[in-house]
């Protein structure tokens, strides 16, 4: 059968996606509709991110893929292999060596630079979707800047639980205008969204939306004066590298329910360990 094009997509599809990316950058936080294509991996498995990556990658790039912060989770491996095969692009697991990073559910711990682009896989791009299931309605709400419903929902959480009960995909306001879903990153990552040196692109394949944050964009997590936004994480250091400030995965380590906490960003953790940082359970003798 036929050879596939560079980065799989045909040129006309790439142009369509590229035009959407430019409009997304020009209107930060606004969801640009695009005619998402069927990709050779299922919807919901990163087809939006894959299409954005396919539209921006050049042969000079070095590509990194993370899922839940890790380079070696099966879906990250699968997407990385896809681009090695279809774009012949170099890949890496080192955050600082990558020029394009496609991610699902995390922002790397290591601050990104102006030479980098972060591409998010987005399942449900509409921050108002769970308050209003109809696209025709939510589109009007964005047009009219009618975000009262979102504040009411968050405030109901506070009156019921004493806290805002949203811990991931925590909505943000972009440049004081559009309310945006940052994809299901933990709210711990929210403060990194704003003023980032790298370009951030968001692709939702099944929902056919692309949106963007140019570098150094003002991004504010929604909150209230009496309940300011708080980026939280498990109150432990990493068991392997001892990091105090990284986002942690909880791992069950024995049948008795014993637990340990390790960095979700595997590259960050490995680099720290290589540099000699040792957590409580990371040393050779700790077994």
């Amino acid at each position, binding site marked *: 059968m036929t050879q596939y094009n560079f980065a799989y997509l045909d040129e006309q599809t790439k142009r369509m996606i590229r035009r959407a990316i430019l409009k997304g950058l020009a209107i930060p936080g606004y969801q640009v509709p695009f005619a998402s294509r069927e990709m050779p991996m299922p919807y919901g498995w990163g087809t939006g991110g894959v299409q954005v990556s396919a539209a921006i990658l050049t042969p000079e790039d070095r590509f990194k893929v993370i899922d839940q912060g890790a380079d070696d989770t099966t879906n990250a491996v699968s997407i990385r292999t896809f681009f090695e095969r279809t774009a012949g692009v170099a890949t890496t697991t080192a955050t600082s060596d990558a020029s394009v990073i496609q991610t699902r559910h995390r922002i790397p711990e290591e601050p990104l630079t102006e030479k980098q682009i972060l591409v998010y896989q987005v399942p449900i791009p509409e921050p108002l979707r769970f308050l209003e299931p109809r696209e025709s309605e939510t589109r009007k709400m964005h047009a009219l800047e009618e975000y009262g419903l979102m504040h009411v929902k968050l405030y109901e959480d506070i009156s019921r639980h004493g806290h805002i009960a949203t811990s991931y995909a925590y909505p943000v306001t972009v440049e004081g205008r559009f309310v945006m879903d940052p994809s299901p990153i933990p709210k711990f990552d929210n403060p990194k969204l704003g003023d980032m040196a790298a*370009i951030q692109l968001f692709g939702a394949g099944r929902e056919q939306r692309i949106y963007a944050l140019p570098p150094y964009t003002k991004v504010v997590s929604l909150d209230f004066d009496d309940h300011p936004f708080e980026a939280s994480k498990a109150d432990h250091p990493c068991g392997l590298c001892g990091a105090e400030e990284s986002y942690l995965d909880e791992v069950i380590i024995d049948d008795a329910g014993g637990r340990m906490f390790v960095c979700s960003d595997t590259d960050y953790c490995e680099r720290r360990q290589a540099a000699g940082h040792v957590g409580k359970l990371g040393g050779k003798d700790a077994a």
Partner: protein
Amino acid sequence: MQAETLSGGFADPAIQSAQAFRGVMEAMARPGTVRSISGATPPAPLSGAAGTVLLTLCDPDTPVYLAGEADCDAVRGWLAFHTGAPLAGPSHCMFAVGTWDQLNPLSVYKIGTPEYPDRSATLIVECTELTGSGACLKGPGIKTSSALSVPEVQAFQHNTALFPLGLDFILTCGNTVAALPRSTRVSEADGATEVSSCTLP
């Protein structure tokens, strides 16, 4: 058909358009930065950068308005052959290309709708110079402030006031490109060249 019509396209479209797009995207994401892009050699009066932008972004789905001198047989034939983009008037185009004077008045272009602000025109402005000095720029994509040689200031201020509606601009000169999205706040630099003399909030 003229030889000029058939030549001057991308030799390796997939790779060259990817490289050119990265230049345009970086320009749009970081207003005030000037980059070089290459690949196309369009007929006069189009610059290499404007031709490269057209080949990178235009196809049969994008009506193009050729303003002023750009609307000549050579350019029409070249654009049709290499992109298949239909020609349109300024009020129906997705892309327009020409000098600042020839593209004006700006009020006729599509600025999007409140529900679909992305359905707006992108203007490729051919400039006689393009440098990172002149008017002061602030907004998304800019750390504190940047500067750019813009054809005028007031028109961009009007455009920014329409946000989230509005036009987006790609500025071209020779083989260089810069961009001014609608989100960029433009003001006169008061100390001639000093970038730090910006007075915007």
